[in-house]
């Protein structure tokens, strides 16, 4: 079968279209993930900010956090509260970073696959042209082929 430029162009177009479609979907998914994660992180911080005064007030009512008394229990409770906040927000941030990294990785992989597939099409084209060239040469040779 002789090289068909239209078929070659169609294959390339289909490849690029598939890549664009999957990339758009991946981008949307990543943005959704980021949006969700950041909203969750913001909500968590808001909740921590809301609960911190309540925690202080609770120790104040029990007399373990007054102007003259700073109990060890209050300090530890406050430190644990802060550590939990750091831990939770750190995990959330780490998950978000990992998600974004994998998105980039996935994008790169799909782009590499696109180039590889384009390379295969180019190789097929070159091979087909070489076959056509050999066939044309055979025609030229006529009875001596």
């Amino acid at each position, binding site marked *: 079968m002789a090289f068909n430029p239209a078929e070659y162009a169609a294959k390339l177009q289909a490849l690029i279209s598939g890549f664009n479609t999957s990339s758009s979907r991946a981008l949307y998914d990543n943005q959704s993930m980021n949006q969700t994660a950041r909203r969750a992180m913001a909500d968590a911080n808001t909740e921590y900010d809301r609960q911190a005064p309540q925690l202080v007030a609770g120790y104040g009512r029990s007399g373990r956090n007054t102007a003259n008394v700073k109990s060890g229990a209050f*300090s530890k409770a406050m430190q644990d509260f802060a550590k939990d906040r750091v831990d939770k927000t750190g995990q959330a941030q780490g998950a978000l*970073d990992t998600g974004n990294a994998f998105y980039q990785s996935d994008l790169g992989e799909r782009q*590499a696959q696109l180039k590889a597939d384009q390379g295969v099409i180019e190789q097929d084209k070159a091979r087909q042209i070489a076959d056509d060239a050999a066939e*044309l040469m055979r025609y*030229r040779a006529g009875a001596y082929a």
Partner: protein
Amino acid sequence: MSVDSYDWVNGAAAKQVNRPRTADRYARTQSLITTAAAGQIPYNYEAGTKAENDAYNRANMYNQAGPKAGAVDPFAAYGGLAGLTKMLQGGGSGGGSGGDSALDWAKFNAEQSAAKNATDTQLRALQGMQGLLASGGYRGNADTLLGLINDQNTQGQAAIQGNYDTGMGNINAGYDTAQGMVNTGYGNLNTYLNANQINPYANLQQQSSPVNNAMANYLSAYGVSNDPVNQQVQASQMANQQGADSYNQLQQLMSANQLSNNQSNLGLSQMAQNYATTGLGSQRAAYQANAESSRAAAMRALQQQIEDARFGVEQDAGNARTELEKLILGLGGSLDGTFAGPGVDGKTVAPGSATARADDVDSAADNYPNFKAALAAMNPNYKFTTMAAAKKKFPALAGKF
């Protein structure tokens, strides 16, 4: 009239076989037959007197009506009267030759003349045949045919060579075109691969976002130490960094694989291009070999055809020569011309064997470099004027060059 008692009758009975067997009666019957042949009453002049003979003549031989038309010729069996007369004069069995007559001498001379003419004719024919043998003329149009065959050979070889040259030209042109296409096709591929040696993992580096202690001021406001919280910050930071490092290590691995794959693709492209180029070269070599083989086969076939044609012509010439030699020998001539005497053109046939001279003509091309040298050696007495005249004079020899 004294008629012999011989039982003579007119008509068919008067035949030679009925002739008397004795000499005396034969003399009598001579007159009887003569008179009977004249259509008269048979009469024996030998037996009669002069008066009787005159009387018979007056009564029967003078002023008599001729034989009646339509009458039966009594000597028809002898070829008429003339035939009978000739027979009685010497043609009969035991008769004389009669060679001393003028007629016989004339006849003899005529026969001798005819014989001489016949001999001369035969001699001229023999001389002509010897001349034909000596000059190679027996070959007829063989040399012309050989010339045509040579022309056919030359033209055939030129045609075969022309076909070969055309075929080789097409093969080489086809190869150049094909090679150009391969270079273009794989050139495009190489260009693509070189332009797309991307490594999607090269710049992928996960950065660990910093973990902050958002309550540091808050704790300080209540006189609570941040140290334990800061330790948690460092732990969380380290955990996130470990995850990022693992990811980055994975990226490096994939990046290395990608680079290797890219190099492999380039190598594959170059290998495929070399493979295609080598294939075209092999293909061209095979086609060229086919063309060469076809040319050789066609040349062999042509040579065989030419040789067959030459053989046929030479075989016919050889057969003609053999037949001519048989005729010469059959007519008493010799193949060297010595028995023939002067030639038909008045010139003496050249000495030497006609067969040998014919052989010399046949092998002249092998013994002499050109026609003029052969002419000078084989015909030293010939006065050379122009090449055209010499070739016209000696066509058989000229045909050998």
